[in-house]
């Protein structure tokens, strides 16, 4: 029941915001309260004694109701340590996103928050569904509201960017639909049972060839979202044009649904095919790390820089998933969380900077440290985090992934490690340009407001925690990862 509540609360909060859209700040508070309850529920699940005592059975909570029975569709939600961490991240970043739009969004509040909440509901649905139909439904449910967030509340070139985002992800979604149906029919023909259930479909007997095709369908859909190298071109545009909260959700959560899909579905459903495909995926991951870092270094637009850095950071996740050993998987999970926090914070900061200076062009900024000391300090902190400074979350993630990849492919690990140099370069550039040098604008800017400081310090605190004591998170994810590994048998 808690799982259902987790999903329903954002949906209801969104609908309520839409209805009360004209009444001042009501939608903001409704969303904050709704997400607060969601976060509370997730924390309660996390701290409950049964979570700590999980050994062999990774599932913390589950509901499994009949739904569209003639087609074998069930309303099957379940939560293990992996989902739990991602649900926590979703509720937390959701709150940050609401705070981030407090000042930037002043019109059409109801519609804005409706879309925000429904994206979050779709994301939660993705993290919780174990019925592939329900998963697909949630997967597509998050697209339309995200499209509206970008196309209506975004910046100048928003229409084109929103359409591009939608076409790429929906194209991936259609491949996913075809692949899911393919799996469904293979299972139907082999066993005579119509089912979209994860556990039932997991043991579908199939020829290596069809397994490969279906695996590629799943992989393509998730790789678009991640985004892995050849499918990444939608991301910089979408990020740049989206409103601040949109970018936070996009980078912090939507990209993570791709990573989650790879972890939960692609490899466990088709272990042999994934193993054969692993070298290609590893190369794509390493190429993503390097290429994203190169492009990030070449940007003038601060927001585009952060966007390209996401491609680079998520390359590590792809590497981690397709190395499929304990170290690499743990690293991927930490990287997912750490990148969610640091990219969310960086987009928050870039958004605040843009609100104050009116530009995102680094050439037009300079010497802002003296004008905006607090904002600058936070930017420094999160640039360091993104760079992978030891003691902060991203370091743990990247280190574990590299250690895991090293066991599988030494060359790839070495190549990727080289990428760390470029990551340092663009992170330093992204910080140095706006904040050092001669002061470019003589206007006086208001520094961070108390609620912005609150949001950013909580993000910073969590990043520190992940960096200094990742064991809490690793312990939570461990049973789930063990189960995934034993399913995949790799």
């Amino acid at each position, binding site marked *: 029941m808690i799982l259902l509540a987790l999903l329903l609360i954002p949906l209801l909060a969104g609908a309520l915001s839409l209805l009360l859209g004209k009444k001042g700040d009501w939608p903001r508070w409704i969303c904050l309260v709704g997400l607060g309850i969601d976060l509370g529920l997730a924390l309660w699940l996390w701290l409950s004694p049964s979570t700590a005592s999980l050994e062999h059975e990774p599932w913390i909570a589950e509901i499994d109701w009949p739904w*569209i029975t003639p*087609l074998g569709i069930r309303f099957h939600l379940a939560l293990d340590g992996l989902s739990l961490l991602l649900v926590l991240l979703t509720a937390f970043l959701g709150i940050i996103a609401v705070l981030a739009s407090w000042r930037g969004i002043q019109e059409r509040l109801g519609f804005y928050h409706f879309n925000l909440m429904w994206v979050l509901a779709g994301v939660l649905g993705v993290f919780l569904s174990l019925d592939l139909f329900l998963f697909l439904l949630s997967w597509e449910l998050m697209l339309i509201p995200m499209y509206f967030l970008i196309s209506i509340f975004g910046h100048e070139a928003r*229409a084109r960017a929103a*359409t591009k985002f*939608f076409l790429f992800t929906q194209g991936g979604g259609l491949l996913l639909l075809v692949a899911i149906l393919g799996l*469904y029919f293979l299972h139907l023909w082999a066993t005579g049972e119509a089912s979209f259930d994860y556990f039932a479909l997991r043991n579908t007997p199939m020829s290596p060839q069809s397994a490969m095709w279906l695996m590629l369908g799943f992989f393509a859909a998730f790789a678009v979202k991640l985004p892995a190298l050849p499918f990444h071109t939608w991301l910089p545009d979408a990020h740049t044009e989206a409103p601040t909260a949109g970018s936070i959700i996009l980078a912090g959560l939507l990209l993570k649904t791709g990573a989650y899909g790879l972890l939960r579905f692609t490899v466990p459903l088709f272990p042999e095919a994934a193993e054969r495909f692993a070298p290609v995926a590893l190369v794509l991951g390493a190429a993503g790390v390097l290429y994203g870092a190169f492009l990030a270094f070449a940007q003038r637009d601060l927001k585009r820089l952060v966007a390209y850095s996401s491609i680079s950071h998520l390359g590590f996740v792809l590497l981690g998933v397709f190395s499929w050993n304990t170290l690499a998987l743990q690293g991927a999970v930490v990287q997912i969380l750490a990148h969610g926090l640091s990219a969310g914070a960086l987009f928050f900061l870039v958004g605040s900077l843009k609100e104050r200076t009116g530009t995102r062009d680094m050439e037009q900024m300079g010497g802002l440290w003296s004008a905006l000391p607090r904002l600058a300090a936070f930017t420094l902190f999160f640039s360091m985090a993104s760079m992978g400074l030891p003691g902060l979350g991203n370091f743990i993630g990247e280190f574990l992934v590299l250690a895991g990849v090293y066991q599988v492919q030494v060359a790839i690990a070495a190549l990727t490690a080289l990428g760390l140099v470029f990551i340092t370069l663009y992170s330093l550039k992204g910080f140095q340009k706006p904040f050092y040098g001669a002061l470019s604008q003589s206007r006086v800017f208001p520094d961070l407001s108390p609620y912005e400081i609150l949001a950013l310090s909580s993000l910073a605190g969590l990043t520190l925690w992940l960096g200094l004591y990742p064991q809490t998170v690793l312990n939570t994810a461990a049973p789930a990862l063990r189960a995934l590994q034993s399913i995949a048998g790799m």
Partner: protein
Amino acid sequence: MLLTDLILLSPLIVIAIFSVFTLLLLGFFRRPGVTLAIVITGLLFALLGALATSGLAPWNIVRLFLLDDITRFYMVLLILIGIVVIILQHQQRTEQPEELYLITSIAVLGALALVASNHFASFFLSLEILSISLYIMISYLYKERSLEAGFKYLILSGSSSAFLLFGIGVSYLATGTLDFSVIAQISPEMLSNPLWLGGIALTLVGIGFKLAVVPFHMWSPDIYEGASPPVAAFVATASKGAVLAFSLRYLLKLGLLNHPTLKTSLLIVAALSIIIGNLLALQQANIKRILAYSSIAHIGYLLIAITSGTSLAVESTTYYITSYIITMLIAFCVISVISRREEEDNLDSYRGMFWRHPWFAGALTISILSLASLPVTAGFIGKLYIVGAAFSASLWAPIVFIVIGSIIGLFYYLRVLFSLYGEPKEPRETTHIPKATALLTGLLVIALLWLGIYPNLFIDTIRSISE
């Protein structure tokens, strides 16, 4: 025997009687409201007749008609469309609308007879009743555009009927019978007879015209644009739905799909319709033309499901047609309110509609989402069904076309959505929305969401009737 025949045919007979009665009445007593009431009563009785006989075993009536549950399902659907369209017509406040209601109900009669027909004679006759009513309905506004549209439809439909008649003639020459049940028995051996195949191919060309599939699609956008929105809705839903339901029987019962070349050509037509329909829709700025081109693509998807020929074919087609009909009716309900004048069909008139009419824009949004097959609408499960049907028959290439077509389709569906929620170009006044239209739209939206979220009952029904 005769009594059973009469009872089973009661939907057709009731509409015929009410139509004749209305026709006579209109000679000396004209009131739009009264005519509306009479026509709707007739349709409601017909609905009752169709519902009351459900569950009875398939029954042949003088060889012309075959009434089974699947036929009755489509009859119910078509009668409901008729009711919705006539109510919408009443809200349009056309001048002298009485005959329009009457002719619409006669068109419904033709559509009902078409889905029930089991014989080339009844097939041709009912198709002509439907088509001739449509010429009148399309040009009824008597404006330049609608006259042009009516004339175009007349000429193209006339030539397609010629194809059809010639095809029927050739088929008769080859088999010596017009009865589908007889043809079905001899069709395995006839499949190698080039004469018969030629005849069948010609009839399929005629059907292709009525369905507006590529390469017989030229007429459809002009009709949609020229006709008044309710009539365009009728063309999009009832006319195409009836012809599709008929082709389901025609293709499956006569075993035409067992012929590889016929099957392949149907799939090629479907693929062309999907790609070309979607591509042409990209260029349009007029919402009715967008819907017209998109409907070409949707018929393409449906043709793939029909052509799969597996046990899933009837079920998936029926689900998809139903969801498509509801979707189009919603769209045309909204269009009939917003575009009162011809120049208002342009997408610009819909800019920022959400901020003026949130509920109506919401309804149109849901309809567009369903066309784009996004959750939680019926279109989502419909697309699942179509791809599923293609899968069950291992039609790999068509699946690729479905995916490509759906991606192209997103471009223009998103454009419509973007205009609904975008910034209006100039401030526009809110339009008066008739209560009846609002109520209808609401009911249709509920139906669409019901089919999309909890269609158990519906799927069980169509599964039981399609066996």
